[in-house]
């Protein structure tokens, strides 16, 4: 008891759980945003309108090749400080930076969600789409009722990898001053002489976030996989 108190003394005054909670919030909001936008992009890329197909392809190719850091820093320096886009955050820098980070993470991750979904659409046997068309369903109906439900079930694993990558990518938000785990870690390392211990704590925190995600979604993917 005594020894433990001395070793972890330096944790006093730092909101460790709070920082990881911000990481979790960033992950969840960005995951939802990128899932919606990524699905729309995938729909555009396989759809019948040539212009939308071109837009989807261009979007994915451009966004995948820009570093996330550039997008996030641009959101802060370009969108906020130059163009005064506040996303309804008022004067509160913390809220604004958080929302900008969510926006940037969503826009970036959507490209990967779109690619994962598209490969999932390719795994659905052509007979499914042909049967749906034979019933007279329109493109949106084919996609919504027949293809996407099956595609989603087959891409749980790739999407889990995207989610894990997203969880790790939320640390980039530290670059624009969102007080999440990596930001707090940098702070603590500068103020305390406990480098190894601090790093170990944060590494452990991220392992606690990413490992269960992988295991849980791996189990889900086996559960929901379409038996063919």
């Amino acid at each position: 008891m005594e020894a433990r108190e001395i070793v972890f003394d330096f944790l006093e005054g730092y909101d460790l759980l709070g920082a990881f909670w911000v990481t979790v919030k960033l992950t969840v909001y960005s995951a939802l945003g990128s899932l919606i936008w990524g699905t729309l992009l995938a729909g555009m890329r396989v759809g019948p309108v040539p212009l939308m197909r071109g837009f989807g392809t261009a979007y994915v190719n451009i966004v995948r090749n820009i570093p996330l850091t550039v997008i996030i820093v641009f959101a802060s320096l370009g969108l906020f400080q130059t163009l005064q886009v506040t996303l309804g955050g008022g004067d509160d820098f913390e809220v604004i930076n958080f929302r900008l980070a969510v926006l940037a993470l969503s826009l970036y991750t959507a490209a990967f969600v779109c690619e994962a979904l598209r490969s999932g659409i390719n795994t659905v046997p052509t007979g499914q789409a042909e049967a749906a068309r034979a019933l007279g369903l329109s493109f949106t109906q084919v996609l919504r009722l027949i293809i996407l439900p099956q595609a989603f079930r087959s891409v749980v694993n790739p999407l889990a990898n995207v989610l894990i990558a997203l969880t790790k990518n939320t640390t980039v938000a530290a670059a624009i001053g969102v007080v999440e785990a990596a930001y707090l870690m940098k702070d603590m390392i500068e103020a305390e002489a406990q480098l190894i211990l601090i790093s170990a704590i944060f590494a452990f925190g991220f392992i606690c976030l990413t490992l269960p995600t992988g295991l849980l979604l791996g189990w889900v993917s086996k559960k929901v996989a379409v038996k063919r």
Partner: protein
Amino acid sequence: MTTSVLFDAQGPRAKQRNILYTVVFVAAIAALGWWVYTSLDEKHQLDWVKWEPFFTSVQPWETYLWPGLQNTLKAAFFALLIALPLGALFGIGRLSDHRWVRMPSGVVVEFFRAIPVLILMITANAAYSEFTDIASDVRPMYAVVTGLVLYNASVLAEIVRAGILSLPRGQTDAAKAIGMRKGQTMRYVLLPQSVTAMLPAIVSQIVVIVKDTALGGAVLTFPELLASVRPMSANYGANTIACFTVIAVIFIAVNFTITTFAGWLEGRLRRGKKSTGAVVGGGPDGGVETIDTPKLVAEDGHKV
């Protein structure tokens, strides 16, 4: 006329509808574009003065962009150079018959794959300043390379493992039958063949490495391409938007070249007669397609 299994060949009504969708979509894009244009114009970000330095003089290229790009590529190059052999070592280690080699390799690989690369870079930076006497002006570079090596070596280890596992069992059996030892089997039979299967995934990993160097610029004062935004926009009259545009274009050009090369390589290897046809695909943002140990990749669908 495009056809797809997802929609019927378009009749006159469908064509009309598509034209309607196109018009609506163009209108939405145009509205967005107009908003971007007016807000940029309002802040005088579109003034020619702010864009001119990039087109009329070599100074921004000579002073900021080219050195920045050089640092970006240098860090990526060294990271790849060190991570490749390390990754091969751990990838092969995970396939070892000996438990005491397999287990530690597995733990190391899974550990560094689960941690954000930024955390690794920050730790490396602090560790170098505390325990070594590396000069403070090159320390960020060392830290960036260290972080990239630790993360990418573990990703490359998974790629190597998946590549070796993608070979048919008969290869190992045949090598055993002619009396090769385990090391010989690996060196003369398995590795040379699996390299072709791994190459596209390795090349796509280079894109991830190049992109991750930007972290060093944003967080660790590593003078790479992204870090040149602040001094540039301070020097050329707050042309933040112009600077970001130029930098994004450079990143896209570099990475698009690598991605295209990877795609071409993958297509070529898939068609190739000499390889087994199995190709290890790149995962999202680095890594291979699955995170847990069984059934790794091989995009041709055959279970490894």
